[in-house]
């Protein structure tokens, strides 16, 4: 395998590993904050003990997950140096804000949450618990602003002198942080974290019921976790709808790949699984119009007219314009000091074609097609598992509410199995988002084969296996500590942290 493949595999593995911890952090933060709120409102120590138990699991997950995102930044600098330079200005700001904010909010409120039970007032402690979760959520926003920009690079201008995308205008920063792709991605990701936290809480609680232990604690946790999970599930569906509309608008090839849609058109059908289709549903999901036009893979290759009447050029035409942009860039850079007038003319040509600059690096039009099978099935797994989660949560909530859940052993087992499933669901979501946008690191501007550093495949392969070993070790440690804490249960909690 070549350097591009190894670099992509390594980055994918690191990002997937990071995403094992983030959703549970976001979800458990909400679960424990709701429980502590019940403690403060009801003045019942039971809820304090319950909240403290889930905080303990939150801390285990947080400790192992902490800094896993930093590895991605290492990889940017080492494996993706061209990309890092190209986006430096744009990426630096949100990531720096994220780092500073995360450090100060989490270092402050996290400490009060764990050390402050007997030191600060109930309300101050409760505020700290909420702010710990809010801090983690705001951190996620800045990361997703950076990711959203890669999917839909708004607010920046390519500077041929520095070879960077820069936030040149006064409104650029606002355009970047209000990027619709980033906003929908943020809500989709955070609420999928609530779903993960809810499923985890319900699944662990069901294990106690199977063992005949901690019955009041388990039933109460199922109700809180189930409601948080259901809220997350509903929001995931709504924000998933927004993500679909944005994919249709900004990344139609991703949508076509996710649907396995070779030839599109008006009133396009949605494929549930091959052979089972819902007429006009894809058009509705993509455009909120049952007769809306959805381009298929071949339409995108050949060029088409979108719903607003805009003519979208064929990929071959985009490649021509991309090559023109790259030739103009080379000319500008070679002449800017010796012949300013000719350089200015080259720059004007570059600016006319810059939006297709990345296409100039493609060898053939079919290079814009992502791995269709992977994206198609990852999308179906994500949606299918998500629906199973909703059903499982509804059933566990119903029987917990009726106080009959302990006798439904099949449901208790199902809830436990939902824990690994919800992680598969989240990973599939990222596969759709990231594999679906191949071959681009930055949509239309920079393909992966140009974004990478000049390294040997062997060097990246070595670090890949080093990471694999380190990640596996830490994951095994986390699971061991987590299972130990769960086995011990909420009853045994003499310590404050």
């Amino acid at each position, binding site marked *: 395998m070549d350097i591009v493949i190894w670099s992509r595999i390594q980055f994918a593995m690191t990002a997937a590993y990071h995403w094992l911890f983030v959703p549970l952090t976001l979800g458990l933060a909400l679960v424990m904050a709701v429980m502590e709120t019940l403690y403060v409102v009801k003045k019942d120590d039971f809820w304090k003990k319950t909240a403290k138990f889930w905080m303990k699991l939150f801390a285990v997950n947080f400790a192992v997950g902490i800094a896993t995102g930093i590895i991605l930044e290492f990889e940017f*600098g080492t494996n993706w140096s061209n990309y890092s330079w190209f986006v430096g200005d744009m990426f630096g700001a949100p990531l720096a804000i994220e780092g500073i904010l995360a450090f100060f909010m989490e270092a402050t409120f996290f400490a009060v949450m764990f050390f402050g039970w007997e030191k600060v007032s109930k309300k101050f402690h409760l505020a700290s618990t909420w702010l710990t979760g809010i801090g983690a959520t705001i951190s996620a926003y800045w990361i997703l602003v950076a990711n959203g920009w890669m999917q839909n690079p708004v607010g920046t201008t390519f500077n041929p002198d520095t070879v960077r995308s820069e936030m040149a205008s006064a409104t650029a920063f606002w355009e970047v942080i209000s990027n619709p792709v980033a906003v929908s991605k943020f809500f989709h990701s955070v609420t999928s974290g609530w779903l993960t936290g809810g499923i985890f809480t319900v699944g662990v609680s069901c294990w106690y019921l199977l063992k005949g232990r901690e019955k009041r604690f388990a039933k109460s946790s199922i109700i809180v976790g189930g409601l948080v999970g259901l809220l997350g599930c509903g929001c995931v569906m709504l924000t998933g709808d927004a993500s679909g509309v944005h994919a249709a608008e900004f990344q139609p090839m991703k949508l076509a790949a996710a649907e396995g849609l070779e030839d599109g058109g008006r009133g396009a059908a949605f494929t549930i699984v091959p052979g089972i289709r819902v007429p006009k549903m894809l058009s509705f999901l993509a455009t909120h119009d049952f007769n809306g036009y959805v381009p298929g893979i071949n339409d995108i290759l050949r060029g088409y007219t979108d719903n607003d009447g805009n003519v979208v050029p064929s990929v071959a035409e985009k490649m021509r314009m991309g090559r023109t942009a790259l030739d103009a860039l080379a000319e500008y850079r070679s002449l800017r000091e010796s012949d300013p007038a000719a350089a200015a003319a080259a720059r004007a040509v570059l600016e006319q074609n810059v939006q297709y600059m990345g296409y100039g690096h493609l060898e053939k039009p079919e290079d814009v097609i992502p791995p269709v099978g992977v994206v198609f099935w990852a999308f179906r797994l994500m949606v299918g598992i998500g629906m199973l989660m909703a059903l499982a949560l509804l059933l566990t909530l119903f029987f917990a509410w009726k106080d009959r859940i302990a006798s439904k052993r099949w449901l208790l087992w199902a809830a436990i199995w939902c824990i690994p499933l919800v992680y598969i669901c989240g990973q599939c979501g990222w596969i759709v988002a990231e594999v679906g946008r191949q071959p681009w690191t930055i949509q239309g501007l920079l393909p992966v084969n140009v974004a990478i*550093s000049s390294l040997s495949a062997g060097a990246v392969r070595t670090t890949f296996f080093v990471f694999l070993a380190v990640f596996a070790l830490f994951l095994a440690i986390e699971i061991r500590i987590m299972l130990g804490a769960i086995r011990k249960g909420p009853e045994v909690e003499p310590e404050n942290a």
Partner: protein
Amino acid sequence: MGSLGSKMKKVWELYRDGFRNMTWGRSLWWLVLLKLFILFAILRVFFFKPAMAGMSDREKSEAVGERITQQPHNQTDTLNLITD
């Protein structure tokens, strides 16, 4: 000033007592420290040197500019075939 000093003292005591009284949290801290050591003292130092470390901004823009203006060699033929 006295009030501020008193508040700072309380903050200090919060952290000090919190760390002192930790039981299961202590092993988590060791885990965090071990991980940070592996990340920054081993992986960062030996495996993840930034590819353009030591270059000035001008040198970086030259290097990336050179790479970005290179185009695939067999692209022209493909485009001609499509046009035909």
